[in-house]
């Protein structure tokens, strides 16, 4: 299970990057990149996201 970003919802604010403990997320100008090898599915980014754009795959939202 890794976290996925929904680009239709995402506003590219970078809150998820700030709380990610493993630096798995990078914010590009208008794109979120997730390093699946680094993601530990802790859910911090899901909790902080103001618009619900992060989701742990395989989990119901």
């Amino acid at each position, binding site marked *: 299970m890794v976290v996925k970003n929904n680009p239709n919802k995402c*506003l*590219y*604010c*970078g*809150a*998820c*990057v*700030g*709380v*990610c*403990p493993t*630096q798995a997320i*990078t*914010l*590009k*100008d*208008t794109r979120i990149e997730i390093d699946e090898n680094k993601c530990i599915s802790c859910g*911090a980014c899901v*909790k*902080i*996201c*103001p*618009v*619900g754009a992060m989701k742990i795959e395989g989990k119901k939202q």
Partner: protein
Amino acid sequence: MVIKMFDAENKIWDVIIVGAGPSGLAAATEIAKAKVSVLVLDRKQEIGCPKRCAEGLGNGWFNRLKLKPKKEWAVQEIKGAQLYSPNGKSVKMKNKKVLGYVLERKMFEKDLAINAVKLGAKILMKHQVINATRENGIVKLEVEVNDDKKYYQTKMIIACDGIDSKVARMLGLNTKNNLKDTDSGYQYEMTGISGYDENLLHLFFGTDVAPRGYVWIFPKRDGTANVGIGIGAYEEKTAKYYLDKWIASQEGMKNGSIIEVNAGGIPVGGFLDKMTADNLVVAGDAGHMVDPIHGGGIGIAMEGGRIAAKHTLLAIKKNNFSDTQLSAYTKDWFDSRGKELMRRLKGRHLLEQLSDGDFNYLAESITIDEALKIGNGTLTPKDKLILATKKLIKRPGLLNIMVKYFNDKTE
């Protein structure tokens, strides 16, 4: 073929600042003033956009930062605030004098940028730092520009790259935000709205409105305002959910239009006890420089940027870019700002424990002066005694929370 517009790669910069927001531009201004070479890189397409901010800036900051409000960007005069308790009652604090402004940050930051460049700084947008390494005392930055890679070298990095800061972490300084110290923020810039005094900031409290936070209206003239929310990150529902729900319940918002959608994480409490590493200082949101109570950060970030610049210039003068040399910056920041913010953090922790009933009670029983002193952590022993014996005694649960807060000496 890539056209080379500038010759910024083949030199060693004295200072590279990552992030062209208020703190980065304030730092760049100070560095450029000292005739030291400074390059500012920012991943975004435009300065000041998209904002992650309600754009308020108080007069205290204008004075301290020696800034003069300009018509182009200080778009709304603010003379006070109106606080709405959960039961719908409100307390209005309105001054005759102007206490601050709501800004148009796009214009404000462009103004800061133009000024920094006039003084000698260079700024490049859409430059994303993807790696930073040290080599023989020099920092090498690998920078993505469109499909191209560029390499820049510098003696000193000032990391002002916001909550999504990675540059500091690339250079070994952990700036990660703990979830418990980070708020989830969401905002619409709306126009065509009504029913509020445009000279006041409006804050709406209540666990149904905004759990562990509040909804705000920051007016921007002519029925236009930033209407936003900040809530604790542990809530089940999103900040957007709560804000949409609140807007739907407001008569004055019914005819509103949405002209901007903004979001952001707000680092409201986890101050960094270390803000330096070899060749590196960090400022602004990246250094968690935000007021724990109201979540504002423009002024604090700019002051932080200036202090960061001061210590960077000292390091350059001594030609010593070691963590040991730079570490005085952390102490300097805490002495000039951080300690006050730590006291306000205690005020925040107090607020978080209050129930809607406590809030309603306080709104009716305490004075504005008492509320401000609680927020600032500046109650005298006499103030505390009066509060406890005359007012809080009627509400024992609240008294318990307050006594714990009064006795908390941790700073």
